[in-house]
């Protein structure tokens, strides 16, 4: 099967998952019914749009980071952007009223701060090792500060709303939320797609890549800006959703090949399909409430990933 045919199948999956996301829920809606129904437009559509965008950028940034760090275990969390954006959001929930605009702005501020710190820490030696070290430092610092903020919360209700938000969800998002988050995600995705060539060259190692004309400083700037915008906006609007960026490139590598540039577009499509389906399943959970998307991804992702590791453990490339 050609690459174009495989991409077409993935795209069809995304379309089907998007449709599922519109109709699925405690209340199933017919697609051919009154399309202007309030539930469809006000509740399901923004949710489906955000799921599509979030899944796409999580998959794409996972593929880019795995290529850049040449590590199949890398995912957007290692950069520290998501935990920094979460720190900003938690601060806004606790101390700025917690309106969706304030949370979004604070989370983007946190992501921007993380990007600036990453750039400052790795400016002098643009190499993936420096990058992952800086990201790890940033990630644990932001995690610690978030825990500190939570411990200063005025009352248990505030803590509950923070924890609820941190679990990541697409519930009750409005078209305004989608309109705020999707533009930075789209710009960031465009920036990430610019890395394709350089990621391929890095397959041969840093020296060989540089000898092929790759400017590591430029590449690193693209990775920082691209993940900052995509993951920052993603966390800002949905909270922290893990595993997508880690699992999707893995799933697709046997289908689309190992070359990093061949995985970028498929990972975006695969991530979108996965998040849309997972979010639809979240709504169908028994009981009055919903399973949080971040929790569902971890619940699906961890055993799935374990199975993948068991399957591939005898091969050189997992």
């Amino acid at each position, binding site marked *: 099967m050609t690459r174009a045919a495989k991409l077409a199948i993935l795209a069809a999956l995304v379309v089907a998952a998007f449709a599922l996301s519109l109709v699925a829920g405690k209340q199933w809606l017919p697609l051919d019914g009154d399309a202007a129904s309030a539930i469809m437009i006000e509740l399901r559509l923004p949710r489906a749009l955000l799921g599509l965008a979030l899944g796409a950028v999580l998959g794409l940034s996972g593929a880019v980071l795995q*290529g850049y760090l*040449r590590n199949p275990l890398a995912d957007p969390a290692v950069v520290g952007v998501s935990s920094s954006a979460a720190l900003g959001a938690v601060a806004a929930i606790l101390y700025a009223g917690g309106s969706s605009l304030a949370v979004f702005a604070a989370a983007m501020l946190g992501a921007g701060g993380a990007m600036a710190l990453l750039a400052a820490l790795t400016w002098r030696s643009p190499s993936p090792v420096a990058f992952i070290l800086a990201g790890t430092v940033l990630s644990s610092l932001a995690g610690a500060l978030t825990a500190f903020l939570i411990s200063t919360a005025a009352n248990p209700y505030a803590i509950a709303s923070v924890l609820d938000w941190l679990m990541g969800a697409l519930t009750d998002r409005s078209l305004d939320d989608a309109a705020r988050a999707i533009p930075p995600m789209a710009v960031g995705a465009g920036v990430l797609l610019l890395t*394709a*060539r350089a990621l*391929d*060259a*890095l*397959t*041969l*190692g840093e*020296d*060989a890549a*540089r*000898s*092929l*004309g*790759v*400017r590591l400083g430029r590449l690193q700037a693209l990775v920082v800006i691209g993940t900052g915008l995509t993951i920052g906006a993603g966390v800002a609007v949905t909270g922290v959703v893990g595993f997508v960026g880690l699992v999707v490139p893995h799933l697709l590598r046997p289908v689309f*090949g*190992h*070359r*990093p540039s061949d995985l970028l577009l498929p990972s975006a499509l695969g991530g979108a399909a996965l998040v849309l389906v997972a979010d639809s399943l979240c709504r169908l959970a028994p009981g009055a409430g919903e399973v949080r998307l971040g929790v569902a991804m971890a619940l699906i992702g961890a055993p799935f990933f374990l199975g993948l590791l068991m399957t591939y453990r005898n091969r*050189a*490339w997992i």
Partner: protein
Amino acid sequence: MDLTFDHVGVSRGKRRVLHGIDATLRAGRVTAILGPNGAGKSTLLKAALALLPTTGVVRLGVDPVATMDPRARARAIGYLPQDAAVHWNIRARDAVALGRLPHRSAYAAPSAVDEAAIDAALAATETAHLAYRPIGELSGGERARVLLARVLAGEPRWLLADEPLASLDPAHQLDVIARLRAVAAGGRGVAIVLHDIVQAGRLADDVMVLKDGRIVAFGAVADVLTPATLEPVFEVAFGTLAGPHPICIAIERLGR
């Protein structure tokens, strides 16, 4: 177009790895770079590629390599590192195609010229039959030939290779030697770091001998590959064999 080192020095931390190297490597010839471990051979190649900060200047023709546009430099100078790691299990042909990256405009698919260069490089290294195999399934020697094909596919004016014969069986060593000699015969420059002094005698026109970051000897192969030159450098007693090439063979460790 010659490759000229003009008082080139390299430091790693506080340690000087290369001290004021002055030399002109000539196009159309194969220059072998010899020396004991830690002599600065690989560092010399990296300095020529502007992969390291240096003092002094390395020039390709009249252009300082450090200030060349990275893509133009990549088209002019091909580099085969000692590290044969390939980090993803890509197909051999895709690895070879990476050699064409500096020739391709952004986001364009490989052109017919690119495809022809890739095919020629695969043929030259006898790896065409491996083209669609994942690189992780190849033997060390096969992989080394594929990586050499990657550099050849770029058709650089200068080819700098770090230990290209390591991990090859004798037949493929001779093939690679013939290939590198053909590259030089076409008017391009070849500089390779070697440990095998016998192969250096067979492959090279010129030999540069480094020790402790300094040039000990540099000249035509027959003048440099002599026991008198090599013994103090390697601290090994050498003997010579008569033949079409000067053959120096290490015999025993010199007493310290």
